[in-house]
């Protein structure tokens, strides 16, 4: 399997990454080099094997833990917005989305 420059453009769009011409070409070569490495993984027979997400699931039952939905610590809006690129009156500013 080999990716094409068309694939690179599609993936970059999905990932919201702008790639320059030179960068896209490099990315194509490097990703194809990488996927050569992945080929032998695809040939492994995994019939009947459950995917593993939490590693300790191998030895014990790991339930998905949910926190009680109750009010806890107070959110300090000013502190949370201190590192925001653009804020006005407590709101995050973004380019106009709806005309």
């Amino acid at each position, binding site marked *: 399997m080999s990716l094409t420059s068309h694939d690179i453009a599609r993936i970059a769009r999905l990932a919201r990454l702008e790639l320059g011409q030179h960068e896209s070409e490099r990315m194509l070569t490097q990703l194809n080099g990488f996927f050569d490495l992945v080929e032998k993984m695809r040939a492994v027979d995994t019939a009947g094997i459950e995917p593993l997400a*939490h590693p300790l699931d191998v030895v014990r039952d790991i339930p998905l833990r949910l926190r009680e939905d109750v009010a806890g610590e107070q959110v300090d809006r000013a502190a949370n917005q201190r590192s925001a690129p653009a804020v006005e009156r407590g709101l995050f500013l973004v380019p106009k989305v709806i005309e």
Partner: protein
Amino acid sequence: MSGLHDLSVAELAAKLRGREVSAVETARHFLARAKGHESLGAFLAIDEDVTLAQAREADARLAAGDIAPLLGVPVAHKDIFVTRDFPSTAGSRMLAGYRSPFDATVVARLAQAGVVSLGKLNCDEFAMGSSNENSAWHVARNPWDLERIPGGSSGGSAVAVAARLAPAATGTDTGGSIRQPASFCGITGIKPTYGRASRYGMIAFASSLDQAGPMARTAQDCALLLSAMCGPDPDRDSTSLEAAPEDFSAGLGASLEGLRIGVPREFFGAGLAPDVRAAIDAALQEYRGMGAQLVEISLPRTELAIPVYYIIAPAEASSNLSRYDGVKFGHRAGQYGDLTDMYQKTRAEGFGAEVKRRIMVGTYVLSHGYYDAYYLQAQKIRRMIADDFQQAFRQCDLIAGPVAPTVAWKLGEKADDPVANYLADIFTLPASLAGLPGMSIPCGFGAGGMPVGLQLIGNYLDEARLLNAAHRYQQATDFHLRAPAAIAAEEAR
């Protein structure tokens, strides 16, 4: 006060408790060392006022009779941990100058135990890399040879400890990022069982793999720090284990008589450099001399760990890093058109080459039509790899082998070849995928006089046994006490 930096964490804590030295004097000593060794590139942020204020508080606690175990001991944090008092950048332009409104749980737990923070340490961008060359800010140099990489991604942590700029440091390990730089810089580091230490406030890379751990000169120091760092954090980390906090120092010193050490034959193949192999073989013989029994085992899917890891970790990374959109925090492009253009330009400017590659790989393997063939297939083989370890642990109590196939390489040597970097992670990735605790301890020197680390892997929650095996080895050897020549020379002055 010269010589303070020669002390272990345990010795320093005792001197502080005995009021032989104050926390402020200690902090000043290490701050001066950090300043004097700026060219090593270990630190990303230092703030004397913050550090000295914490030290004064530690002195007040000492005077009041507080018995916190690490009171006044200076520790520096990998820049992956968010901190209220220092900027937190994860080594990325994306987070230039970012100030967190809170401390990571690990940072808070260590502060509770009395630690004084010396600042933030260099690392590969978002912990993605094994040479520290992916830091957006500056290179970190190996104190044993300034032309070589210190390893990564916790490269700054390893440099700081090896050069005696900090008695200990925090690190994080996703695919080997504590063990490999510890090995390359001749120090001791442990990655605990996945879920032992809270991930809250650790800037996320691959959430099913990321684990925090300590890096120090001795196993005894690692035990002290790890005890303070670990513990359940159920409200803040959904994957935090319920395991009660443990005193990992309590069992240190127990005999190794009858300990069964598994030696995986796949770790000793053609890819292992002869100089590293010689040091590892000698370490295994040392263990035999201490009464341990060497058992040959097999981890048949060792090589497969590379593609499996480099599918799963980028998949999780592409999802985690989607939060960097230039809206709520972090970098935003200066010039852009509409919202999508803002996202694309912000991310193009904010991320470095390796991070972009991993986002691209992750996005692709999670995309429609490829998910089953890549991501799900990788997760299935991940289970097979974890099962292989459980099979092996029926025959042995812990597993030993090399951390990396070679000693630290030259700066720039593999910088343009991502796959070459990935292949060098072969011996650390299997334990990461299985979520097992692993450590690196200095066990000799290879080509160019560079340190070699022995990797010890334990079963789930078996950190105490690992640390004891490391401690006993360090009582019988002195590799962990050796300092890089330039550092040793200034100590003699």
